[in-house]
């Protein structure tokens, strides 16, 4: 039965999953900002 397979419904129902998503998204965006900065520095050196 599909309903018998345990999923993370508790996390979803109490909204905590959004905290997890937000944390991971912030980490990822932070890393991407770092990557962009490195790219800009390399661009500057190339001129």
């Amino acid at each position, binding site marked *: 039965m*599909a*309903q018998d*397979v*345990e*999923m*993370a419904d508790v996390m979803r129902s109490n909204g905590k*999953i*959004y905290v*997890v*998503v937000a944390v*991971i*998204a912030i980490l*990822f*965006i932070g890393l*991407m900002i770092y*990557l*962009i900065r*490195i*790219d800009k520095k*390399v*661009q500057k*050196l*190339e001129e």
Partner: protein
Amino acid sequence: MKLKWWKILGIVLVLYSIIAGLLMPVPKLNILNETIRNLYFHVTMWFSMIILMLMSLIQSIRYLSSFDKLRDLKAESLASTGMFIATLGLTTGMVWAQFTWGAFWVNDPKLNGAAVTMLIYLAYFILRNSIENEDTRARVSAIYNILAFVMMIVFIGILPRMTDSLHPGNGGNPGFGNYDLDSNMRMVFYPAVIGWILLGSWIAQLSYRIKVLEINKENN
């Protein structure tokens, strides 16, 4: 801000895959439960590695037809980024295995094939380091790169499908592509793969540009 469109697209697609990957519905399957969402990250790593290694192969072949040293540098950067991504794929796979199969590693053709592939590419870098002469190094490693790519296809694409395997998609197990990967998952998986290929290409490009800067500095 002089940032190429494809880099921004890579960021957007991966960010989307993180958010949608955790929030959108997935098939409810025993043993996997929510870990099926790892498809968007673990499997994506391997797909990206294959594409990066393919790009590296192309640069190696182009080098052999032109002896343009820059192409050899590109091949090296792409292969090293591919190795890094493969390491991420391997470690995420091990974590996933521990929770679903009960062990970090099993004696399985796909897993062993992936490990062997990584060793083969590791040898590419060791080979490069062992040759002093620039032209010889570029030539020999370009040829080795071709062999390495073919071996990769054999070890992770062909052999695992021919025998018993625990890994999805091999040894008679339905792959995620067959019926588990429903259209909901495809909506996240395909953008994720494209996004990570773009990000991987970006990292490889940065590695290449820095190598070029280093060489120019040496020559001046």
